[in-house]
């Protein structure tokens, strides 16, 4: 088990190194630069040069790359060009919000997906199953930004000016400071509903289809018949023998879902004004804010790699076949 984890850690490190290298060259070789959008005729050419110099952008690319690697080794992320602050501060401000949103969305996605999948599988070919399958296919095909807008219109005041749920942000800015603890908690939950649902539904749809397929596959196995033949109740058959085996591949899906969930947050954070790292990433890409772009993408990369590592370890822990081989 230890060598297994060590080996996976090594692979992760190499992956991240590759990721940061590719990111570095992609963003630096993209047309335009960090001053392009904010440039204005009142800024003299000398000042422009000084700005570039102060961020080390006047150096040849290989030298910039080398110093970037060196600073990464010291875990220094440098300064954001557009945000006028240390990159680390910008990330510390937004990373917790993104993690909060994406982890909640992921749990929601998994629990919804698994439950719907089970229901559909147990009631295979019933009208309920067909309805669930059709609606999950529909949800799965709707792009997130569109689903987000749809939710805005339906639940946040678009139709009939009835705002059931807050359309943006993490808290009610006007009243939050004067709220008690439970009001604050409720307020935060209310603000989470729309962005969470928007990210989770599409994923839940695909997980439910996957779950249904897995469970049906497992139910067809002889050991399920054996369990029935032993006289086990149907519920116990599904949950003890069926579900535990059908859930195994879902663990792998968690690892694979992470990048999807994160890319979902990028879109959803913009639609619902969620103050997360996805927005930082989008801004940084458009503004060619190299230091922050690199840091944020490395962050997302690290989260995905860590998620996959965790899924692998988890898989090894729950599956006796993996553990020992």
């Amino acid at each position, binding site marked *: 088990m230890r060598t297994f984890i060590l080996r996976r850690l090594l692979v992760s490190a190499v992956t991240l190194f590759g990721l940061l290298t590719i990111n570095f060259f992609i963003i630096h070789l993209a047309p335009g630069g960090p001053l392009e959008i904010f440039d204005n005729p009142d800024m003299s050419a000398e000042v422009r040069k000084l700005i570039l110099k102060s961020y080390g952008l006047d150096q040849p690319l290989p030298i910039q790359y080398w110093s970037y690697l060196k600073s990464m080794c010291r875990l220094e992320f440098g300064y954001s060009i557009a945000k006028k602050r240390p990159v680390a501060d910008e990330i510390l401000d937004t990373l917790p919000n993104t993690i909060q949103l994406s982890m909640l969305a992921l749990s929601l996605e998994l629990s919804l997906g698994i439950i719907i999948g089970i229901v559909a599988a147990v009631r295979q*070919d019933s009208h309920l199953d067909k309805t669930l399958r059709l609606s999950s296919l529909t949800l799965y095909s709707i792009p997130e930004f569109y689903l987000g807008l749809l939710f805005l219109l339906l639940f946040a005041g678009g139709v009939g000016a009835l705002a059931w749920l807050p359309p943006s942000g993490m808290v009610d800015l006007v009243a939050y400071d004067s709220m008690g603890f439970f009001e604050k908690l409720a307020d935060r939950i209310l603000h989470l509903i729309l962005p969470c649902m928007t990210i989770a539904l599409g994923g839940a749809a695909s997980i439910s289809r996957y779950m249904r397929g897995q469970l049906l596959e497992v139910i067809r196995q002889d050991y399920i*018949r054996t*369990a029935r033949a*032993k006289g086990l109740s149907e519920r116990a058959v599904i949950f003890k023998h069926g579900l535990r085996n059908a859930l195994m591949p879902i663990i792998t899906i968690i690892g694979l879902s992470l990048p999807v969930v994160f890319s979902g947050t990028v879109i959803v954070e913009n639609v619902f004004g969620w103050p997360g790292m996805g927005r930082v990433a989008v801004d940084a890409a458009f503004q060619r804010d190299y230091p922050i772009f690199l840091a944020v993408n490395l962050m997302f990369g690290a989260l995905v790699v860590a998620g996959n590592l965790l899924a692998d370890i988890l898989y090894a822990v729950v599956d006796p076949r993996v553990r020992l081989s």
Partner: protein
Amino acid sequence: MKADPLLLEVEGLKKHFPVRKGVFGRTTGWVRAVDGVSFSLLRGETLGLVGESGCGKTTVGRSLLRLIEPTAGRVVFNGRELTALTHRQLRPLRRDLQVIFQDPYSSLNPRLTVGGMVGEGLAIHGVGGPAERGERVAEALVQVGLSPDHLSRYPHEFSGGQRQRIGLARALVLNPKFIVCDEPISALDVSIQSQILNLLAELKQACRIAYLFISHDLAAVEYLSDRVAVMYLGEIVELAESDELYRNPLHPYTQALLAAVPVADPAGRRKRLILPGDVPSPLNPPSGCRFHPRCPIAIQGLCERQPPPLVDRKGHAVACHAV
């Protein structure tokens, strides 16, 4: 023999599967996998069920245990009509009705240890305390030729033959009266097959268990069975004592089946009989005797009609107009 009460009685068992088509899954037809099968078993008796793959023999095994719901027919076990019970009422009876499957890989839950798997049945039926159950599980393992050391291992650590032994142990631990053996040896290596066959034979002697031994391996069936039933397209076409059937097959299909078996037979008494055509689809079986389109001795104008019903335990029963 006649004095022995019947352990199991199957009467007119039918299982038809719907065929669904189109977006709305409308039922467009029925596959008659089992279409009116009747037979009976005595305590400790073994009935071999043979036939080509797709003839419905596995479906007979599963539907008589109600692992799938039979479409019609009566199954009476030990005086109780299984087909009239609810699933809940059926559960306590399952202790006596066990099954082992063909694939030793998919028949064991990969997430459970051997001990957990074998012991689960005892727990379900509330047999003894944990200690007693442990003992019985160990006993069952020894009975099938495994070591009690294997209790905490997982299925993937075993070979196919060992897995089949685990499957058997899991069935045996409940002291069942009847086991459906659904092609228990066909997925195994030839050398292992005989070990499992011998094990089944020993257990039959030792515990007086009745088997429904489903197989397409005619030699294995001959070795283990007291009586043999031959199935063709969802129906039993011939049923007789094992020796009688193998010595004197009456139904042309049985003859063809036996002729196809390569046996060491220097005298060449058996003629090789090649059947024309393919097995017809059970979706649309031929009328009358289902075998007649391929039958070498079919009598035109007669075989298109349903042959007389086959009556069990009346000597050598055969469903054929020409015999």
